[in-house]
């Protein structure tokens, strides 16, 4: 009865806290119970994920369920197929339990752009859970589920993981099939994983990674071969980018990162100060590339085939304009307008220009990995900010993804691991350490992060309100 017990435990914790947090858009109680009972009747477990309930971000298609990217334009939409990552998890015996809240179409860093209201941070309900995988991070932080799928286009899995004090991982571009991930920017999108430990994330990666012939951009590689647990970090050279360190505004957070670097040094790693001047342009480059691709990607939401439809003057073009104008949220409209302007005849050199800058940033990052094995920095330049504090201020909102975006542009694997908390305005708030690896060095990133966790045990710290949970 282990699977059923795990599901009931998760449902009890959801029952106790979800109303305050707003991490979930839908819970499939009956489906999960049925699947759990079926798994419990099987003679032998299918693997480490057998009977483990999980949550998935609302931009991952789950056949027959309401996975509409938290957008009103996909009101009532139930996809006719499931994302490859979900198919593989189900095949491994994991139990999809709930759909998590997010910024609409993953546009945002605070969860406030969800059409269904923002998720609250379990560490302080007045603060953001980060974004755009806000619900996935909060669901793990609140103890609802041991892990959740998210997505990471420019930090959307790592930043909320850091702000909610859980582990988060963005794999190399193409490591996990994007099939069924409702795209935001196809050259940047990855399926991300958030979990209560790096060990858990490794189990998920071993299951969902590996080539998918239905995604032409998926790496032609077998499932990720994990490295054996490390006792120490001797022989590893860890680069600390000067420019990234300077962006860290919060003194408390700065102290936690410094302590984390010292901890890795104590484990035997060699710390090397490195300079990555071009990555200072990463955020601007990312804004152009992602907006152009998003405008293209969202063109399909026209009210013709699925989702919501508004009509006005009886013409097709009128229907499309009315539907898009009234069903997309303000941030989606902003990005579509920006991307459309930048790709129109007048603005069209912008995308190519940004793509060229992107290639130079990629070259700079690739070159640094000839000198170091990993890059270490904070995941986000600050701890969780208050809800409402930055809404409407795009520039300040984008600042939140500053340290996460370089890995996205270059398709590099990067993990965020909890490295302690700092006191801000009288509350303890988690800080995340980002470890970014060379192209396709996912296993190296994870084994290093796992070693750090085993030594520091920061990941065991729990949000205070989860203390009395079942």
């Amino acid at each position, binding site marked *: 009865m282990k699977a059923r017990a795990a599901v009931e435990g998760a449902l009890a914790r959801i029952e106790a806290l979800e109303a305050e947090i707003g991490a979930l858009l839908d819970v499939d109680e009956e489906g999960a119970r049925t699947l759990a009972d079926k798994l419990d009747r099987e003679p032998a477990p299918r693997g480490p994920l057998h009977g483990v309930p999980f949550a998935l971000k609302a931009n991952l*298609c789950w056949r027959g369920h309401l996975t509409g990217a938290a957008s009103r334009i996909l009101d009532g939409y139930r996809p006719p197929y499931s994302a490859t990552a979900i198919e593989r998890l189900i095949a491994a015996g994991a139990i999809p339990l709930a759909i998590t809240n997010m910024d609409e179409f993953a546009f945002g860093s605070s969860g406030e752009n969800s059409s269904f209201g923002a998720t609250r941070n379990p560490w302080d309900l007045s603060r953001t859970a980060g974004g755009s995988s806000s619900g996935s991070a909060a669901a793990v932080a609140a103890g609802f589920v041991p892990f959740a799928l998210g997505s990471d286009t420019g930090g959307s899995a790592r930043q909320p993981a850091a702000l909610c004090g859980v582990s988060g991982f963005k794999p190399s571009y193409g490591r996990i099939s994007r099939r069924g991930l409702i795209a935001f920017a196809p050259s940047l999108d990855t399926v991300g994983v958030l979990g209560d430990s790096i060990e858990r994330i490794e189990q998920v990666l071993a299951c969902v990674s590996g080539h998918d012939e239905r995604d032409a951009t998926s790496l032609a590689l077998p499932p990720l071969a994990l490295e054996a647990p490390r006792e120490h970090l001797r022989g590893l050279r860890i680069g600390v980018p000067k420019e990234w360190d300077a962006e860290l505004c919060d003194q408390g957070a700065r102290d936690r990162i410094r302590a984390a670097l010292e901890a890795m040094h104590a484990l035997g790693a060699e710390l090397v100060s490195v300079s990555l001047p071009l990555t200072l342009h990463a955020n601007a480059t990312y804004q152009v590339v992602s907006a152009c691709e998003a*405008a293209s990607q969202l063109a399909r939401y026209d009210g013709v085939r699925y989702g919501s439809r508004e009509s006005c003057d009886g013409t097709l073009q009128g229907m499309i304009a009315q539907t898009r104008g009234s069903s997309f949220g303000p941030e989606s409209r902003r990005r579509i307008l920006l991307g459309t302007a930048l790709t129109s*005849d007048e603005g069209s050199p912008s*995308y190519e220009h940004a793509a060229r800058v992107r290639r130079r940033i990629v070259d700079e990052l690739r070159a640094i990995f000839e000198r170091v094995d990993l890059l270490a920095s904070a995941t986000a330049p600050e701890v969780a900010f208050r809800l409402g504090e930055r809404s409407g201020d795009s520039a300040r909102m984008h600042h939140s993804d500053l340290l996460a975006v370089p890995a996205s542009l270059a398709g590099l694997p990067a993990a965020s691991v909890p490295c302690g908390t700092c006191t801000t305005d009288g509350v303890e708030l988690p800080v995340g350490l980002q470890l970014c690896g060379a192209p396709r060095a996912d296993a190296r990133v994870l084994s290093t992060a796992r070693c750090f966790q085993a030594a520091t045990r920061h990941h065991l710290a729990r949000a205070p309100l989860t203390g009395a949970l079942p």
Partner: protein
Amino acid sequence: MTRFTPVIGLEVHCQLATLSKLFCACANRFGAAPNTLACEACSGQPGALPVLNREAVDLALRAAAAFGCDLAPHLVFDRKHYWYCDLPKGYQITQSREPLGCGGEVELADGKRVRLERIHIEEDAAKILRTSNSESLVDLNRAGVPLLECVTAPLLASADEAAECLARMREILVFSGVGECDMERGSLRCDVNISLACDEPSARVELKNLNSFVHVRDAVQFEIRRQSELLASGRPVERETRTWDPERRETRSLREKERASDYRYLPEADLPPVPLERARIARAAACVPELPMPRRRRYTSELGLDATLVEVLLESRASAEFFEATLRHARDAREVARWLANDVRALFAEPELDVHSIAELSFKPFDLAELIELAANGRASRPAARQVLRAMCRTPRAPRELLRELGLESLDGGAELDELCRTAIAAHADASEAVRSGHARALDVLVGAVMAASKSRANPVAVRARIRELLQAAP
């Protein structure tokens, strides 16, 4: 009136004859019930991804080889954006920055060579069905069908040249097996760009939806006249898209403002570049047969066939190849051509035979050659040979054997023929009398009677001679 020189270019869309669609596993098939050939990818569902169909690439490479295009080093795709209900993703996946092929040419009958500016691969849009109460229904079966777009340089100078160029492109594509190219089914479509040059070229008009060769010719003819008259009277030609109305026999403006101009092309990030390896290109080129134009030249000058026969033989690759294979076992090319063009084709009109094209014939070129030989040396009368041909469609047996089994071997003389002739003379006393008194044409009545009585086995030449003999001998 001032003379203006028409400047005409074609944009030809050919559906590639693949088993499945360009970016998904749905069948590429015409005529299925609406929306039964659609999946998450070709219906533009959120999160669905395109996966490139290798067969489509190979067919496009074959076309490139047939036209003699220079190839791009790798295949890259772009998104072309516009909103219309026939476009499920809000963009069409096409090749704009770097087409599969550039250059290459199409040869016309008079030897003129029309350069191709580009050929590229793209996906077809869905089909819109208009209902009687002016609703539009979307049929996604066609969405994502692979297309090859071929754009000629504006080097055509008349309506006839435009229509001919389209026909030449079609036969190259058909012979190479690249596409079915049936204009009625829409598997070949043609847009025409046309302007008139005098001192400086006039604005370019695009003619869309020309569904047959006749429409292409008529529409271009009309458009040349319309533009000439405008220019001659000092009015400008507007740059626009027009369509041909075959009922009123005129072009009219489509006024498609919303679909004009800015397509906001963007690289297709879902499809990484596909390198085109030399071996793959060579394999595709090896599938290109001898093209229709050199064959046409050979048939006319070497074999001495007249143009009408040649065109019938060149109707399809199967037809031309059947002809040439038969020729290897036969003496007279003209005779073979006539048999194929007339008697064999007549079989396709007989429903009970259930044969509709050369490719479906159950007998072999060798068999046809044997039958032609039997007819040529008089072993079988022409009508008897036709009957054997029909029998050959049902049973794959040697014509010689079928002829014997059906009892159709020629009656050239002997007692049986004698008896038939005597019976006919007796039965048609008036005709016999007429022949005797010098009305030679009455002989046909008697010959006809013998032919009918012999069920066409009698050799008409022998019958004619024998009846004359009998009538002269008798008192």
